[in-house]
């Protein structure tokens, strides 16, 4: 469908890769104590199979995930021979899960801060799914070798409950991270998925009230925190107030924050429990990842704010054509055919594209997740957002088949070899305070 993001046969490859990964995740931990020496060879065999698939499909992201993960397992096996093979596998898997979860989180804000990261923005879900798979592998090892498949242990302490809920939520996100789910699942189903997650959380909490041991000192603190966070991310919570336009997919996948906090709590309790006093290296490792995620997001928001303030102060030459004020943005010669450039017209960021001898102007902010439309690819008469492939007609900003909302468009004109952009949106979308509301929201009832 899209250049650079084929969606025809990779779906079959993905299913094969997922089936391979799940097979190894469910088989390898079942070897038992006596065959524990086989764990490393089998894990490497599984990773090799996934790596071969990645090479066949020329999927560099999957290949990087496989190589880094294999290196981690081999390194731990070499440098920590005194630790039992089951523990080495379990702990390496959990570390990899935390690593890929952190990477998943960092790609988002970094793609707004630098264009270099944008190419892997599409691949973000690969890291997220990898985080789930390694988390599931860790879970299987621990569930068998520590807890003897006793299901009660999953909810009897904040330590296990936090990780169990995190894993269940990760499974929901992994299963709904496909392009098919992104584009085809209707809004009502997304709300149903979100509310089901909330109901599951509530049920787990009620069960813990009856069975819990409340042994860990962090329990009093952690439980209120993650329930309040979950409530804050409810369908009418903070995201809709801040982002204004949040699709059902985005709403559900913002549970990543809940997952990340839960897994961090799980790791903190694990280390304090293992060592009685948490070692400095563990605190530094978890703290660095956690701070990187939160500070990078904060930095991204500050950069966006500063850019908007600066751009709002810029002035442009003006002309009036047919009663409408037009602003000069740049000489014609400075444009490349098929490429976009960003300007600010009356405080609104606008992406201007040269298509043959014509120019088209659209809002530079994708209504989905504020992707930079000026970096989008022109395919025929549509422009495609570089982040999630939402497509819009370059003539009027109307949404393509995979976009839920439209994009404001602006009239253009050329005079004296200068490109001018009209001050008023000519599409069916209107603007308010620099944010874009949509006249026909798919969520309106």
């Amino acid at each position, binding site marked *: 469908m899209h250049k650079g993001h084929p969606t025809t046969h990779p779906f079959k490859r993905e299913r094969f890769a997922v089936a391979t990964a799940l097979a190894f995740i469910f088989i390898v931990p079942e070897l038992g104590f006596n065959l524990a020496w086989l764990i490393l060879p089998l894990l490497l065999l599984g990773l090799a199979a996934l790596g071969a698939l990645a090479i066949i499909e020329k999927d560099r992201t999957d290949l990087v995930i496989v190589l880094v993960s294999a290196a981690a397992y081999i390194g731990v096996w070499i440098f920590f021979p005194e630790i039992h093979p089951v523990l080495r596998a379990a702990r390496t898997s959990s570390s990899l899960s935390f690593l890929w979860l952190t990477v998943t989180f960092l790609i988002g804000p970094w793609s707004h801060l630098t264009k270099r990261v944008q190419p892997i923005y599409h691949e973000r879900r690969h890291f997220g799914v990898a985080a789930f798979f390694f988390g599931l592998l860790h879970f299987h090892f621990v569930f068998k070798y520590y807890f*003897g498949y006793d299901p009660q242990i999953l909810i009897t302490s904040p330590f296990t409950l936090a990780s169990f809920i995190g894993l269940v939520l990760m499974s929901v996100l992994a299963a709904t991270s496909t392009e098919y789910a992104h584009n085809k699942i209707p809004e009502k189903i997304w709300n149903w998925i979100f509310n089901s997650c909330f109901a599951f959380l509530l049920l787990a909490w009620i069960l813990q009230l009856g069975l819990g*041991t409340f*042994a860990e000192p962090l*329990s009093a603190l952690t439980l209120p925190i993650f329930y309040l966070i979950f*409530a804050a991310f409810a*369908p009418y919570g903070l995201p809709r107030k801040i982002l204004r336009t949040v699709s059902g997919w985005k709403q559900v996948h913002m549970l990543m924050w809940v997952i990340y906090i839960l897994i961090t709590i799980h790791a903190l309790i694990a280390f304090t429990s293992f*060592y*009685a*006093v948490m070692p400095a290296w563990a605190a530094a490792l978890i703290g660095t990842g956690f701070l990187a995620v939160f500070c990078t997001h904060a930095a991204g928001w500050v950069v966006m704010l500063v850019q908007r303030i600066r751009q709002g102060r810029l002035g442009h030459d003006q002309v009036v054509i047919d009663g409408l004020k037009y602003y000069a943005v740049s000489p014609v010669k400075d444009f490349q055919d098929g490429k976009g450039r960003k300007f600010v017209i009356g405080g609104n960021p606008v992406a201007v594209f040269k298509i043959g001898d014509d120019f088209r102007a659209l809002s530079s902010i994708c209504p989905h997740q504020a992707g930079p439309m000026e970096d989008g690819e022109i395919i025929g008469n549509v422009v495609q957002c570089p982040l999630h492939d939402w497509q819009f007609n370059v003539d009027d900003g109307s949404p393509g088949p995979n976009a839920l909302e439209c994009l404001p468009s602006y009239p253009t004109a050329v005079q004296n070899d200068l490109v001018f952009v009209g001050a008023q949106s000519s599409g069916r979308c209107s603007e308010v305070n620099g944010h874009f509301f949509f006249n026909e929201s798919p969520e*309106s009832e």
Partner: protein
Amino acid sequence: MNRPNHNRQYVLAAFLTTLLLTGAGCVPQFVGPRFLDAAAPTLDQAVSGDTFILNEAEEWEPAALRVPVGTTVTWINQAKVFMDLRPATFIAPYPYPEPDPPVLPPGEQYSTTYNEPGVFYFNHGYEAVGLVWVVEP
């Protein structure tokens, strides 16, 4: 965006229920004996000997030992899972003779010598709590 108002009420109800349950869940943390406190053995249960066995039901046999200073105490794993021997810091924060206790597979054992008198709690998992009462000979 036009959101249906009745959904807000459900969310508010869920939010308040969550707050209520969260508050209720914190009560046991601060009030009364905690579950594991109650599960821990007492000094009058201590018997003579120098070996703890983690049985298949993941319980300590015996649950408490009374040993003279200088005794080497051994923990043997006869369960089908890892013996996750740890200082029960939630009962008695310290002292514990081993800062990095081992995680042992079935069939293996761990020993340490107690050279100071005191009461040392340890646990495996969440419920198997035991103690070593070290006394002057």
